């Protein structure tokens, strides 16, 4: 397998009144052809900003301070606006969280879907419409040709997300970035959308980056997982290794916070105590240590690098932690012991 996308030392920050919000702090990862990579972490951990940085779709207050985003060797942070537009939609497709507002209410579905085809593939309006009808059927919307004349308000949330998926896949991109595409949908529709993306991936061989905070979705779709915290990658592992043998205390906490159907009912759900650090004032040591039951003195002086873990079942299993958590007894379950 060859490397499709190689992100190196990406740093993105937002200018605010008092200074900067450090949203992404030196994130590096690789995506291989046809691979599905899940990015998990709580709200505000930099997942979405990282992905928007890849194609430079950031709001005006944000700036990319450092790093490289190599797509098959070309640095997306260096190319000009014209080339960038060809990459967006042409090579990297994106779907977003809220399908209800992701479609232009003023143009019908057919026109909206054919625009990228006309623009990226140079199709005629007629060809583009015919292709759009096929795409609609492909994402499970029957009677595609008739529905092309309809407007977004005539589609339900799940259907709109299907349309978004069809649009982002229409120009056969090499990478599909899905930014929490199921968060705004109800559970039955969520499962359908996940199934749909899996099916399209298997059929087209597109590499997928799936951003989520839902670990159950991760288990179903991903090959590899990146766990983010406070703008850092804290753990990276193949999906099986992550679930069976998590090595970062934050990952352990996330797993522990999953509600379980086993055990007593009526008990309180487990949480990770404390709250994430202020991204305007990040410490230059481990950002998780105030919430970490395993923390040692070194956690308060030095920030750990993402390094291969000891006795890993897979070479790609890396974590950013000073402690080998398998050797430590935890006193309190998840609550910040040192805070």
């Amino acid at each position, binding site marked *: 397998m060859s490397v499709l996308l190689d992100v190196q030392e990406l740093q993105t920050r937002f200018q605010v009144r008092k200074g900067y919000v450090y949203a992404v702090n030196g994130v590096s990862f690789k995506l291989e052809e046809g691979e599905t990579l899940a990015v998990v972490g709580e709200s505000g951990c930099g997942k979405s900003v990282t992905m928007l940085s890849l194609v430079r779709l950031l709001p005006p207050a944000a700036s990319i301070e450092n790093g490289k985003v190599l797509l098959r060797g070309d640095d997306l942070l260096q190319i000009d606006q014209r080339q960038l537009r060809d990459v967006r939609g042409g090579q990297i497709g994106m779907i977003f969280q809220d399908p209800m*507002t*992701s479609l*232009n209410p003023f143009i019908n579905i057919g026109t909206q879907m054919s625009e990228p085809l006309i623009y990226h593939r140079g199709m005629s309006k007629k060809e583009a419409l015919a292709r759009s009808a096929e795409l609609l059927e492909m994402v499970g919307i029957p009677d595609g040709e008739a529905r092309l004349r309809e*407007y977004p308000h005539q589609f339900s949330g799940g*259907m709109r997300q299907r349309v978004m998926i069809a649009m982002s896949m229409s120009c056969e991109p090499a990478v599909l970035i899905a930014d929490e595409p199921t968060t705004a949908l109800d559970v039955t529709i969520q499962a359908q959308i996940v199934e749909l993306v899996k099916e399209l991936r298997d059929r087209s061989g597109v590499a997928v980056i799936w951003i989520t905070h839902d670990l159950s979705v991760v288990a179903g779709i991903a090959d590899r997982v990146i766990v983010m915290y406070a703008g850092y990658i804290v753990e990276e592992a193949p999906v099986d290794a992550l679930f069976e043998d998590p090595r970062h205390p934050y990952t352990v906490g996330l797993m522990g916070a999953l509600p379980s159907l086993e055990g007593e009912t009526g008990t309180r759900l487990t949480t990770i105590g404390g709250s994430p650090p202020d991204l305007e004032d990040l410490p230059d040591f481990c950002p998780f240590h105030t919430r970490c039951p395993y923390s040692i003195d070194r956690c308060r002086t030095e920030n750990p690098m993402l390094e291969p873990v000891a006795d890993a079942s897979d070479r790609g299993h890396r974590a950013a932690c000073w402690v080998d958590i398998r050797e430590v007894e935890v006193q309190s379950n998840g609550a910040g012991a040192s805070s």
Partner: protein
Amino acid sequence: MTTQEITATGDIEIAEASRTNLWRDAVARLAANRLAVVAILPIVLLFFIAAFGPYLTPYDFLAQDFTARLASPSSEHWLGTDELGRDVFSRILYGARTAVSVGLVSTAISLIVGLVMGSLAGYLGGRVDMLVVWLTDMTRSMPALLLAIVINLTLKVPLEAWMEQMYLASKNTFFRQTMWVDLVLVFGALALIQWPGYARLIRGQILSIRSRNYVLAARALGMPTGRILTRYVIPNAMGPLIVAVSAGMGGAMVLESAFSFLGVGVQLPIPSWGKMISDGLRMWQTHPHLLVGPAVMMAVITVSFAWLGDGLNDALNPRQWGG
């Protein structure tokens, strides 16, 4: 699970597939609004009169009948005559032309200025935005009538002098028609008063639409900026703008009448409803017909524009779109 199965099991909530579009929906909603429909009639009539009034009037608006000065309404003069023996009904029809041209031209000028200033502020942001907002604030802080009076008093004499010079230089009789000076001044004053409203509306619309998800999605699909503007931003900004223009037209007509009433608007001999009302007011106790005709017209048109604007607001308000 295959695609077919997904379709069969889910998406029970397929939206009702009425094959319409948003504009048609809006028209249907407008048609269902009785007040708005009632209001459309006088407005259509007004535009009709403005276009064809001179061919419909029984008398020329300047024709004086000294044998029938200040005559009460009769079969000969439907709404009577004024001090100089001119037919009031004819003058009202002519006045519609003044009202409509003032409404259209001043709204068009202020809309264009507002569009340019508002879009610049909305897109470019930063210093340009601050400058535009400061300009609108400053303009709006001045009372409209005072501003109009100042413009009229300071610009009228030099403009007339310039026209005279142009006439002497070119011998073109166009420059002899000083009524153009009045119209230009009225249009200018109204545009100056009204552009900040449009500029702010458009700025706000662009700021809000620019950050909508569908604009982000379009950018993520690699759409060029120009296309995003024309297909995503501008159409979505139209609704509130149409409402504002409808209300603004009525507002401009009322303001023009107010100017004329105070003597800084259109000057004699061009008929203007405001001027007619102000003349009629002097002798309303003895000759009420001079006041009633233009006042009723003014009231009907003002109310009609307000109702139509209201109806358009309901029909085009995105919060009421089904979703």
